[in-house]
């Protein structure tokens, strides 16, 4: 891969080999960038781009977000003195250039892999990562906290929070700006505007059209070139007056600023942040000059610098792609074509989307809501089929939940498709607005359980716990894709109370699915027995049932025949099934891919209340361990968590009093 300087910039030739990066090779830490000239910084930018494309083409991950902020990263590290100065990246997956320049370049090929670099900034990983990101819109709040701490400790460092235009749609960003404006502490907020304002960045047809009023405001700012001319006029005028006093000039300046800035910037001014911009986010000279000036000011207060970048800049296939190659698996560098592995089954997300569409065809009261995750939740397909019945509210889970509650009061049947870990943001709304009022909102929680390469920030460990403790909520978990479709139908049928169901990341198993994706509603509070045995019963909840079945098969080879049951419902529990299992077996093991306080707790509570625990039954609950599981491949994570089929068999063996045989499985 060659990187050449041409008249209008650096050109990268993306052919198959590792790029030659002479300048980047000399940079291990930001300190090494301090003495570079603008020309050299531009060369560095080209080399970093080449390096990112090369690395991500091999490992997969997030591509275009990082490409868009190469110049910004270089400018920030050149001007500011990290790690004393703090840079907080809001959208974690744009931190690849940051990681490359802060001593982690040699490990970039391990990114998102087991024991490798995290795909997001992580405080444990490096002192240059000031704050962990993952859920977006947190950078200004965290930055303000660091700025205030600095002031109380009488320190002098700078704090820079980088936030994107998509992340700005979250209320948290406004809460932070409002507070920042009030406190008037020195803080630099960089608004990285790449005109996407929705994640991921496309519907099936093309780029997502802006989700709200914010983009109109931002567009107006960018388009206000004409005002400049008026200011020139006004300036010329004050010279003509001659001998102007300080006040007149200031007033003209103030007024002219009002004319220069289009309507949108006053949004930030009203919140108390001084607005600067828009600035070309790919011009290193401009960025460096501007950051130097701001850094030199003694008391700027909170400042918002609006930079305009292009997502995927510098890599033509990404610039051209509909979704800008936001998240990719490994791909061919020259063409940008991804090597997507072919699977015989669809993902759970797709099965969910298809069965929801089927339900919605039969019932026109069904509507779908998501929070800027049309691709991730599969609702882009729903939107294509029912454009007026699918609502993307932006990165605003709290609003999504209460909005759904409002829809439900009028008799509609809202399905809120929000990832298990993102629903945490809207939890109070689930409790107060939905459950307390017993409104029939259906929650489809995708990415439940361990999620692989994204790590603990996206891990859906807690949803069983936080949903099943709510008095009115029906809590379900399908064990495979056919069950998922029946669960969707069940949820559609539950119209007198809220309900939720969880399903994992990944592809279906290949079981026989109902004809035409149309599920049939299950009987509420009834599980099923999958295989019969004696002495030991395993009661699984959710997709982990598959691991239980595998464990049973492993034990059969040892002549141990266990019963495996699929609970289907955590609330209401299938009491008859549990009583039956408890009465007919010596040992009962519950398994779930969730934290403590979930399914296992509900079962043990029930057993203790009925007095069964006073008897001879041996009860064990297998749950996720009481620690965060790091990112890695799904198999490694499940092993780390101790919930693989091997672990389940070993547990059975040791409970049967055969610890030696248990060791065989270890």
């Amino acid at each position: 891969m060659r990187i050449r300087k041409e008249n209008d910039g650096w050109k990268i030739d993306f052919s198959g080999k590792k790029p030659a990066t002479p300048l980047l090779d000399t940079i291990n830490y930001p300190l090494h960038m301090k003495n570079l000239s603008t020309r050299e910084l531009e060369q560095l930018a080209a080399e970093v781009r080449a390096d990112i494309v090369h690395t991500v083409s091999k490992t997969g991950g997030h591509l275009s977000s990082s490409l868009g902020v190469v110049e910004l990263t270089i400018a920030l590290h050149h001007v500011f003195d990290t790690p004393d100065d703090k840079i907080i990246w809001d959208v974690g997956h744009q931190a690849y250039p940051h990681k490359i320049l802060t001593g982690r370049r040699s490990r970039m090929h391990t990114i998102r892999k087991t024991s490798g670099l995290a795909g997001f900034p992580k405080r444990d990983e490096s002192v240059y990562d000031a704050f962990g990101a993952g859920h977006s819109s947190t950078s200004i709040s965290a930055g303000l906290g660091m700025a205030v701490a600095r002031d109380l400790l009488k320190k002098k460092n700078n704090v820079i929070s980088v936030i994107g235009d998509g992340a700005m749609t979250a209320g948290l960003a406004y809460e932070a700006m409002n507070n920042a404006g009030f406190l008037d502490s020195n803080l630099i907020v960089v608004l990285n505007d790449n005109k996407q304002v929705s994640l991921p960045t496309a519907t099936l047809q093309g780029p997502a059209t802006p989700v709200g009023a914010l983009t109109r405001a931002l567009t107006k700012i960018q388009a206000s070139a004409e005002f400049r001319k008026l200011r020139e006029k006004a300036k010329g005028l004050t010279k003509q007056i001659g001998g102007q006093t300080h006040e007149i000039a200031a007033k003209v300046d103030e007024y002219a600023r009002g004319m220069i800035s289009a309507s949108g910037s006053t949004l930030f001014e009203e919140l108390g942040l001084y607005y600067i911009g828009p600035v070309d986010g790919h011009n290193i000279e401009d960025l460096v000059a501007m950051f130097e000036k701001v850094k030199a000011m003694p008391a700027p207060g909170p400042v918002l610098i609006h930079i305009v970048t292009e997502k995927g800049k510098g890599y033509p296939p990404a610039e051209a792609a509909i979704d800008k190659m936001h998240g990719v698996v490994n791909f061919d560098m020259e063409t940008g074509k991804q090597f997507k592995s072919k699977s015989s089954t669809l993902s759970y997300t797709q099965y969910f989307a298809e069965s929801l569409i089927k339900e919605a065809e039969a019932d026109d009261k069904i509507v779908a809501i998501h929070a800027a995750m049309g691709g991730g939740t599969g609702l882009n397909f729903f939107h294509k089929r029912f454009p007026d019945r699918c609502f993307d509210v932006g990165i605003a889970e709290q609003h999504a939940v209460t909005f759904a509650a409002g829809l439900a009061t009028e008799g509609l049947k809202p399905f809120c498709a929000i990832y298990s870990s993102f629903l945490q943001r809207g939890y109070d709304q689930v409790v107060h607005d939905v459950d307390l009022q017993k409104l029939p909102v259906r929650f489809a929680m995708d990415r439940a359980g361990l999620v692989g390469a994204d790590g603990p920030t996206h891990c859906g460990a807690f949803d069983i716990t936080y949903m099943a403790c709510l008095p009115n909520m029906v809590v379900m978990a399908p064990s495979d894709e056919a069950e998922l479709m029946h669960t969707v139908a069940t949820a559609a049928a539950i119209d007198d109370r809220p309900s939720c169901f969880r399903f994992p990341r990944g592809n279906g198993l290949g079981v026989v699915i109902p004809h035409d994706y149309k599920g049939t509603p299950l009987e509420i509070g009834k599980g099923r027995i999958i295989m019969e045995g004696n002495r030991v019963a395993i009661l699984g909840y959710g997709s982990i049932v598959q691991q239980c079945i595998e464990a049973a098969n492993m034990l059969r080879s040892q002549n141990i025949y266990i019963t495996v049951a699929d609970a289907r419902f955590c609330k209401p529990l299938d009491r008859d099934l549990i009583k039956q299992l408890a009465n007919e077996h010596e040992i009962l093991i519950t398994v779930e891919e969730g934290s403590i306080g979930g399914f296992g707790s509900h079962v043990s509570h029930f057993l203790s209340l009925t007095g069964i625990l006073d008897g001879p039954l041996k009860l064990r609950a297998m749950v996720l361990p009481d620690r965060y599981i790091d990112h890695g491949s799904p198999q490694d994570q499940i092993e780390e968590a101790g919930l693989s089929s091997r672990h389940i068999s070993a547990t059975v063996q040791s409970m049967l009093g055969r610890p030696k045989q248990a060791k065989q499985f270890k």
Partner: protein
Amino acid sequence: MRCSYGLTAIPGTDARFFSPETSFLQLRRTFQPTRIKFGSFKIKAKIDEARKEMSFYELLGISERGTSLEIKQAYKQLARKYHPDVSPPDRVEEYTERFIRVQEAYETLSDPRRRALYDKDLALGIHLAFSARRRYQYDEDLEDRSEWKNRWQSQLSELKRRSMNRDAGGNMSWGARMRRQREELSKEL
């Protein structure tokens, strides 16, 4: 005063929404073109040209709230009527010109993004044919970038000026108090 244009706001307009095109149209009588340069000559010529034409909606014969189905139907009807192959021989040129404009109108209004931009311009009083706007947009983009630099440089100098006086005694914000305390601390050392 001939140059009062610069300082006084036109009554009834919000300075933030102030646009030279609108003012051009409103101030026609008192405005003297030689005094104030509107930058590119091209833009002025296009504005003149555009003001003669009717809006895309009028061209297609639908209301501004027309649905995409209505737009499509109108376009089909008019395209069939004005297509050069079926137009009366003595009016081929006129009809072809109309056809092209109908085509542009459809292209603009059938794409939600372009339609949004077009509606915005319409509200400001300009209706540029899309091809004209595309050129305008490109030129505007280039001009924009150099405009941007000037603008943020002036914003920076304004910030610097403000920051000089920011922590003066009167300012009681938390940040200002903290900065004053820190200054005093470093003076003592």
